[in-house]
Structure formats: C-alpha cells, structure tokens
C-alpha cells in the first residue's frame, strides 16, 4: 500500500491509499465528529456530521465515505461546517424524543456527548413528538424507537457481523424505522440475540435489560477475559462496578471472531437466587453453616475412614466440565493420585465416550484432533448440520454458518429429525425417521459415492429426490464442513459418529488425518475435562458399591438431579456447588463454589486451543476458586 500526502487544516499529513478522509484525520489526531460511522462496518454517509470541505468539491462531503487521495486539501472545522453540525444535532433532537434525563443511555450516549460538545443548549425547531413504539418483548434487548437517530449502525452490525440481517430500514420516508423481519417485535423475529446491535447503537435506542441504569462509563473498570460458557472461547471485555458486572462487550466486535452470543453477553450477568456462600454440614437431616476448615476436615476424614474400611474404589468422583483446567487437574489429583480410586467421571462423560468410541471405530486412536477449528466455517461453501442447532446451543458457530451462507453463498444442509433454526435458510432438509440417523448418513454417503442408496434411504425414511439434491450440492462444493451436536450425541451410538466421520472423509476426499468436522460439545470446558479426567473414566463404572462420593457441580445449569441416582447407597456425599438445588439437598457436606464470572484459570476450547480466563468479579467472601478448595482437601487427606 502506498503512502499519500494530504493537507488538512493547513498541515501536511500522511495516510495510506485505501484510507477514507476520516481515517486519515483520525490517524493524525484530528477529531471529526461522527455518528453513523462505526469502525469495521461499511460506511454509508447517513448522518452528515463528518462533512468536511475539500478544495475543488462544490459542496461539503462526508469524510467517512470519501476516499483519501494524494494532494487533497481539506478543512474540517470551518465556521460553516461547525454551524452545520450544530444544526444537524438540533434536527436530530427535534425529530424524535431525546429527553436525556429519562433515557437509559444518559451519560453514555454519543448524541448527548456531541450536543454537549456543540453547546447545544436549545433547539430552534419545534419538537415533533412522535409517539413511537417501545419494543420490549425480546428476552434481553429493548428497542425504543423514540431514541433512534436512524444511523443504521445496528442494521449494518446485524447484517455484517451477526450475518442475521434481522434488522433493516422499513417504511422508508418520514416514517422510516428500524424494523425486524416483517416489522415484527424483535422477540418474535429471526434475531439470534447476539447483542451486536446493542453494542454499536450510539444512543439509548437499543438497550440491554441487564445492566441498565448502573451509572456512567467513568465509574466502570474494564476487565479483558474469555467467555467460558460454551467452549468457543470468545474474547470478552466486561465493565465492572462495585464487584458487579454491568455489561459484557466484545473487545473487537467487527473482527472475524468478534461476535458474542446471548449466553456470554447477557445470561451470565444475571444474579440468581439461592447462592451458596458458606459451607454447610448436615446434622439430623438439616443443613447448618460451618467454617471452611471444619467442612474440609470433615470431608478428608470421612473419605479416609471409608477408604480404610472398604478400599480405594469405595470412593468416587464426578465433576462438571464448566470448571477450569487447573480445577480439573486438582480434581484428578485428589481422586486418582491422593485417594487412589479409579472411579472418576465428568457429568458429560457419556458424550465423551460415544465420540471417543466413534473416532476409535473410524481410525483407532479416538483422538479429538481429528476435528477442525470453527474458523473453517467462515471459508465453507457448504455446511452440513447434523443433529445440532448451533444457533441455540453454540450461537457464535451458528452465526459463522450464517456468515458462510451470506458471504460465500454457502448451502446449508440440515440432517435432523427435529426442526432446527436454519430451517428456512437450508437448501435441503434431510429428515430421517427418529432413530434412523445412521441409515440417513449412510444413504447420503452412498449417494456421494454414486452407490445405490435406495435401500438405506428408504430405511431412514428419506425420499430419493431429497437425497439426490443433497448429494448434488455436496458434490458440487469445494469446502464442505460438517457440524454435529446434541441430536447425534444423545443417540449414544458410536456407529452414528463413525458414519459421520466416514461421510466427512468421503466429502473431503481426505485420508484419516484431520477432517472438516466439528462436534458441538455440551459444556464450556468439555474438551479440557475430557482430556484430563474423561480418559481416566473410560466407562461409567458401576457405582453401586460406592460408599462415598465427591461431586463438583459448580454452577452447571445442565446438571440433572438424576445423576445422583447412582449414589443412592452412598454413606457420604460431598458436593461443591454454587447454588442450592435438589442436587445439593442430598449432600452431607456442601462446599461453596464460584460461578462463571468469578472463575479464573485456563480453559480448552472445543477445538483444543487454550485460553486464559480472568475473574470478572470476586467470589463472595470465603468462597475460593474450585482448585484451591480441592487442593485443600488433598492436603488434609494426606496429613491425616
């Protein structure tokens, strides 16, 4: 890229070819006001605040869309431009209801800041007082059209970053409005709840239900970390005040991995009830709070006693896959090295085993590195989604599929007995009869190999035509990625997974190295947990002889009380958890555990990368990181 020289406000400045005039100004410390511009989104020149005067141009031009050229002579702050800017602001204030003291964004609003900057202490036009809707049916977002300045940032973010294109301008003309789908409520639309629109909105028009009215930006501290909820490991930036998370943003929204989802951005912020803040011990059927020392000693003593009486395998350990690798290692250390049991497992162990066995059937080693990174989806021209609904379970991966759909015109093929969120966008929906997924996968593989697929197709309940359509699309693609998830995993049949891997090999005409396939693992650190603990508990053992168990639930929202059924005959149950629940009810000792936003350490993403996680807020007093609590038990056990 070659260097160019321009004159701005009588000073020589340099820029790069390809820059806009606005880029050059900003890179040289010249502050030109903008509203519709957002770094990384396509500029549209809508708000006219960034107008500058350029010699030989008859009228002022928007600097955000004007390509910088060598030799341009530019003025950015003439009296005329500044008067215009003030007038534009006044018109914006007159157009809708911008009554700052009653707005969620007051103090954190680009329109308000500019009005202050331009000392706009009155509006010379009659206010038009439109009575526009406030749409609050969405679970996390509120759109107040009365505050909207029609800058279109949300629309471009929804289209270019989320690739959902749920939002667009409708009713063009003086009734122009940001509309979702067919002017529906956002909560009833195709919105994927990523919150990108909220992050880019310069005013109070789009706000999040979590974290409103918590103060001004200067009162917040920013914490950079990674999200631990689903295993994708997105980078996040949290704003924190008084040990409370006010909001979570993406640190670089417009980058290729900048999108967040509703779980990472909104859900983990909400306070939940019944938090466990003190260790509890059961006495005569009732819980009593006690000191941590007391509880830890009791757990170590009881495990020692039971092991001495009944042997190593009388003690079992079970852990969630939401905790950090450090905590998982500490858990493994306690159970296997210190206590010496062989009975350890993760709560999502069944998922691991079936995937592991599937891979083993396919190529003998069972290694998860057969899979590729979700990054590949951005390059795909065809995506086969089998028994998964990524827009719900792993929305950032779902959005990557939408990205491929939009930017690469990728075809989406759904193979699922259930309807999934891609339904209306999919080119083909292969809908096998419930439980006939394996036959469906085989039929598709055969069609691709041009082998007669009639029999397995029929067996799966697929019609020949749909099968041919799907095979044609896949055969015509250059870069087909296969994504599978819960719907396949829950079948608990390794043959189905082996069949999918085989399909991936046929599709990719690849050997048995890495295949363009991704499994959506159920938990935030499933891969880390499977690689540390999962491999030790290669099958869910018979727990009927177990006399004592140590279970780390933390804040695992998916944990089903039924997992405790295996421990009906245990004499002693120690549970480490964040919330009181029917699960903790069964414990003899309850130890407090931090929740997601309070945890720190390293996590392994679903494609095997390590990300480091900082705590966004401190756990309640007395609640330690999970690995600290677990190590304490180990130490006490050894010191008995």
């Amino acid at each position, binding site marked *: 890229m070659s260097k160019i020289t321009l004159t701005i406000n009588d000073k020589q400045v340099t820029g790069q070819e390809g820059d806009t005039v606005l880029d050059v100004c900003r890179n040289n410390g010249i502050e030109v006001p903008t509203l519709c511009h957002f770094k990384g989104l396509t500029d549209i020149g809508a708000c006219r605040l960034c107008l500058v005067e350029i010699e030989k141009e008859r009228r002022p031009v928007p600097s955000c869309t004007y390509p910088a050229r060598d030799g341009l002579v530019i003025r950015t702050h003439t009296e005329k431009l500044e008067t215009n800017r003030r007038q534009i602001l006044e018109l914006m204030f007159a157009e809708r209801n911008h009554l700052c003291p009653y707005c969620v964004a007051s103090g954190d609003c680009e329109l308000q800041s500019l009005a202050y900057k331009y000392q706009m202490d009155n509006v010379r036009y009659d206010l038009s007082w439109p009575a526009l809707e406030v749409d609050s049916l969405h679970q996390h977002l509120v759109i107040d059209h009365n505050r909207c300045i029609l800058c279109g940032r949300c629309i471009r973010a929804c*289209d270019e970053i989320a690739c*959902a*294109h*749920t*939002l*667009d*301008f*409708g*009713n*063009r*003309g003086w009734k122009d409005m940001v*509309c*979702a*789908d*067919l*002017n*529906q*409520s956002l909560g*009833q639309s*195709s919105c994927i709840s990523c919150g990108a629109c909220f992050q880019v909105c310069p005013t109070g028009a789009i706000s999040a239900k979590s974290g409103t009215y918590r103060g001004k930006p200067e009162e917040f501290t920013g914490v950079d970390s990674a999200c631990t909820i689903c295993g994708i490991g997105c980078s996040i930036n949290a704003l924190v005040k008084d040990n409370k998370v006010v909001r979570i943003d993406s640190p670089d929204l417009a980058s290729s991995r900048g999108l967040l989802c509703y779980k990472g951005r909104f859900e983990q912020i909400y306070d939940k009830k019944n938090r466990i803040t003190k260790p509890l011990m059961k006495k005569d059927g009732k819980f009593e709070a006690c000191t941590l020392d007391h509880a830890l000693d009791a757990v170590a003593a009881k495990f020692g006693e039971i092991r001495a009486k009944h042997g190593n395998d009388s003690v079992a350990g079970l852990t969630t896959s939401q905790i950090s690798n450090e905590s998982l290692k500490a858990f493994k250390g306690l159970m296997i090295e210190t206590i010496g049991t062989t009975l350890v497992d993760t709560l999502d162990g069944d998922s691991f085993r079936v995937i592991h066995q599937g891979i083993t059937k396919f190529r003998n080693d069972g290694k998860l590195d057969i899979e590729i990174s979700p990054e590949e989806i951005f390059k795909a021209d065809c995506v086969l989604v089998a028994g998964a609904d990524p827009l719900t379970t792993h929305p950032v991966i779902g959005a990557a599929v939408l990205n491929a*759909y939009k930017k690469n*015109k990728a075809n989406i093929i759904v193979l699922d007995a259930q309807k999934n969120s891609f339904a*209306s*966008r999919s080119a083909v929906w292969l809908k096998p009869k419930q439980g006939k997924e394996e036959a469906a996968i085989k039929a598709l593989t055969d069609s691709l190999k041009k082998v007669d697929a009639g029999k397995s197709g029929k067996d799966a309940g697929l019609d020949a035509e749909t099968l041919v359509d799907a095979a044609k699309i896949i055969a015509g693609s250059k870069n087909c990625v296969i994504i599978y998830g819960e719907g396949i995993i829950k079948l608990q049949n390794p043959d189905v997974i082996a069949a999918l891997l085989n399909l991936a090999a046929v599709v990719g005409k690849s050997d048995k190295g890495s295949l363009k396939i991704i499994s959506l693992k159920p938990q935030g650190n499933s891969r880390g947990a499977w690689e540390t603990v999962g491999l030790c508990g290669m099958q869910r053992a018979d727990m009927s002889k177990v006399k004592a168990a140590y279970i780390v639930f933390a804040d695992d929202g998916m944990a089903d009380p039924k997992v405790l059924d295996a421990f009906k005959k245990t004499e002693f149950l120690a549970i480490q958890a964040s919330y009181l629940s029917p699960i903790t009810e069964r414990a003899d000792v309850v130890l407090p555990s931090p929740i997601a936003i309070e945890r720190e350490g390293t996590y392994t993403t679903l494609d095997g990368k390590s990300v480091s996680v900082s705590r966004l807020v401190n756990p309640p007093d007395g609640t330690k990181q999970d690995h600290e609590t677990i190590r304490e038990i180990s130490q006490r056990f050894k010191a008995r």
Partner: protein
Amino acid sequence: MSQVSTDYIRAEINKAVPADIRQKIEKIVEDNRGKAGAAIRVLQQVQGISGYLPPSVLQTVSGYTKIPLSEIYGVVSFYSFFSLLPKGKHVIQVCMGTSCYVKGGEKIMKTLKKDYNLESGGITADGKFSLEMVRCLGCCGLSPVIAIGTDVHRKVKASQLKDILSLYK
C-alpha cells in the same frame, strides 16, 4: 403499503404455504435469477398469484431468493403497490392529493369508515371492497376523485357513495 399490525404478521407468518403456490414461487424466482431489480419483479409477480403478499408467502420468497425478510419488508413497505393484506374483489382508491383532500377526500374516507367500517389498508368483512389511500390520481380538475378497480368516479360527494358502491356486485 399501509401499516400492518404485528399480531397479524405473527399469526400469518408460519402458516403453511400450499405446495402449488410454493412451486409457482420457485418458478418465478428461477425465471428472474440474475436479472436487474429481481427482488421487485419477483415480489410483483408473486403478488399476482393471489392479489397480495401474505407474510407466509414472503417467508417462502425469502427462502428461495435468500433475501432476508427485513430487506423484503423494506421493499414491500416502500411501494404502495404492494400489500401484506388481502385485497377486496374491488379495490377502492381514494385520492388524497392536495386538491381532492381540500374538496372532500377526507370526508369520503370518514364516510367509508362509518358506513362500511373500511379503513385505509382494510377490507370489508365480506371481502368485496378494500380501501387504499393514494397520493394523486392525476385528475385534480375533477376532484374529489375515487377509483374503483379501473373506473374513475369524479366529483364524488360522500352522500353518493352508497349508490356508487352498489354498482359493484
């Protein structure tokens, strides 16, 4: 297009589109692929199938064309030619251009509302008439003007509406 309620869209959008209509839509989309202004042509031809654009049909169009629903709404809501609501057997257009407005266009609208419960964008219960407000029919000298189907009625008084409408069976 006149404004349509969210409830209506919500109730209509997931209705099943009959297979024959799906096929027709698919053909229209294929025929227009790659042509300039394809979206508008497609919508225009699809509206020709049943006289209006039911939300469920727009969903189908979006699926075949890969044009997002919100973008389709942007187009449909811009041109008064398009309608998300069914049209009556006879479409009444009342001119609200300056001249017609001054000379009684508004009174005509009020009467239609009072006597036939017809509002702009609405349809009578029996499906016989639907009503549209239009900007100028280009016959300002004959104002106020209304058009029913292809017939233009000039210098219409609100009191004559009953007689005029009775001409349409």
